[in-house]
């Protein structure tokens, strides 16, 4: 091979002496989408960021030990001065490795530990709420789409009804009641606020997907393969979950990846309004407390906000990339 040939053809696999026939067949839509996603650099960067957050959430205790901080170990007497300002770190003193993000005024809790555990709360609540609402949305969407007549009408009515309920209004009004009710059960005492929060996020999270799935099923059920399954006497639950569901993977994955960041933002918003996890670190709660200190102690507020913004931004971009990967019409 001459130099000019190498220049024209390029080196590497192209100059394979036996050019193989490109394989075309045998790639499932899932595989194609996966390949497109893996070749998307921005999406991969976002995936890495999200993975980092997940690791932080999982290994929060170990990370705290690594930085030598302890969660919820602040003592208002020894860690804050007589004006409730922390005795080390910002805002009155410089940076210290004893508390890299400083201590919280009033309580003296370490803010880095609070941040690590806040990631845990945020991700856990959002993940559980999104998974449950996805399951609910898929099941109700399948039922509505596949059952003509009354089943469809009832589910559609319920979807419309829940879409008219104002989310924040109902959330801040209902959550104290849920907490109140569950507090009586000693087994749920610790987690009452957590469970109430997840329930609220779930109850308001399933309608969009249910509508989407219903629409897809309405058009899918007229197709030949469903008719064939029907004629063969396949039981309904088999048609729903073995025939229809695999065809709905794309909208479900896309909807999941886009509603996860929305749920994280909603969780933070609710926490800011005083609804949500109490007794455990949470970014929204930190922001709520940090607001009054903003003028003197901005880092207090910035840390949790950066946490939320970066995570939501990365998840949103990732969700967009996943949607584009599944969309045969889009080119990236």
């Amino acid at each position: 091979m001459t130099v000019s040939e190498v220049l024209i053809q390029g080196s590497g696999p192209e100059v394979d002496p036996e050019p193989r026939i490109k394989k075309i067949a045998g790639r499932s839509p899932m595989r194609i989408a996966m390949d497109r996603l893996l070749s998307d650099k921005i999406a991969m960067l976002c995936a890495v960021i999200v993975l980092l957050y997940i690791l932080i959430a999982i290994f929060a205790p170990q990370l705290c030990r690594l930085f030598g901080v302890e969660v919820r170990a602040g003592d208002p007497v020894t860690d804050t001065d007589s004006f409730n300002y922390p005795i080390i770190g910002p805002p009155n003193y410089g940076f210290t490795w004893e508390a890299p993000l400083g201590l919280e005024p009033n309580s003296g809790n370490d803010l880095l530990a609070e941040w690590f555990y806040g990631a845990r709360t945020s991700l856990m609540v959002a993940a559980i709420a999104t998974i449950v609402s996805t399951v609910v949305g898929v099941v109700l969407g399948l039922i509505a789409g596949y059952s003509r007549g009354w089943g469809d009408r009832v589910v559609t009515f319920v979807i419309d009804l829940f879409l008219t309920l104002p989310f924040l209004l109902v959330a801040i009004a209902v959550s104290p009641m849920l907490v109140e009710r569950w507090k009586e059960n000693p087994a749920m005492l610790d987690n009452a606020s957590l469970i109430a929060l997840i329930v609220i996020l779930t109850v308001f999270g399933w309608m969009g997907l249910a509508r989407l799935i219903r629409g897809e099923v309405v058009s899918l059920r007229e197709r030949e393969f469903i008719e064939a399954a029907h004629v063969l006497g396949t039981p309904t639950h088999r048609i729903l979950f073995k025939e229809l569901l695999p065809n709905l993977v794309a909208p479900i994955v896309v909807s999941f990846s886009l509603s996860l960041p929305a749920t994280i933002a909603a969780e933070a918003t609710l926490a800011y309004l005083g609804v949500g996890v109490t007794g455990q670190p949470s970014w929204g709660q930190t922001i709520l407390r940090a607001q009054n200190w903003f003028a003197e102690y901005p880092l207090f507020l910035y840390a949790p906000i950066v946490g939320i913004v970066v995570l939501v931004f990365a998840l949103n971009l990732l969700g967009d990339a996943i949607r584009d990967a599944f969309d045969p019409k889009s080119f990236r």
Partner: protein
Amino acid sequence: MWAYVVRRCLVGVALIMALTLITFALFFASPVDPARFACGKNCSAEQRDVTRAALGYDKPFVVQWAGYLKGLAVGRDFPLDAEQRAAAPDQVTHCAAPCLGYSHLDSKTVNEMVADALPITASLAIVALVMWLIGGVLFGILAAIHQGSLIDRGVVGGTLVIYAFPSFAIAVFLLQYVAVKWGIVPLPRYTEIADGGLWAWFSNLLLPALTLALLYLAGYVRMTRAFVLESLSEDYIRTAKAKGLKSRTVVFKHALRAALTPLVTMTGLDFASLLGGAIITERVFTYHGLGMLTVDANNSSDLAVLVGIVLLAGMIVIIANIVVDVLYAYIDPRVKVA
């Protein structure tokens, strides 16, 4: 056409009834005694019984619900107990239809409280709507025309970054930096047009409305961009260009039309849900609109007010839904409602 409107309205009425049922079930099935909260802190057992009778909480759930529906339709008189009304006729409060309830804590009908708060929320929603529509459509078109270029990426990326901020963060930043630290605008405080004129009204609304507008901007930019892009590749756009029309005319008159229908839908529903109260924004800027009213009612456990506001917000959304669907037929000649 009319058959469709009537059918939609009937479904709307059914939805409103279901909505009242759900809110009622939620609030009165709660473990707290509504009469205890309605009566206030220092309340003897007798007073509580009087309050319970006055608000009808001693009746079965279905009777209460029916009474509430009746109030919505024709209005009612408080206290609900006929004997109490006869005993003190001068203290009877008439709540005209659509009666949303009576707040025993404030000794006011919920309608009065809503009437005080709604103009504030509505002003906020209107100014925000204008901001995000102008911004969203202009940036969306800008991004679409320069598809794939740096401008496109900048606009889409920028709106996504803003979108990633929780709404309270935007509000807090705007308040702390623009108003407090830099002093560019005075601290926002709601001023009625009648009090301070149009400019005072607007300049005080600037920051809270901007918060809301930024919140909604991303969605509108992306949707305008997507629909304009789609229509820019259509044949009729090529025809329009080939005719020698100015590119401004092509974009605004021909390409934008395709984005109009989804824009109207989205605007209608977003505006309607905003009218239910922009809780976060109102709270950060302490605007005493519907959102603040909810927060206050929640703090004082004023169930009657909460029920009334949830219902009102739901009803606005239901009505907006119907209006938008009917508007569809006028904007988009391809839509035929059967």
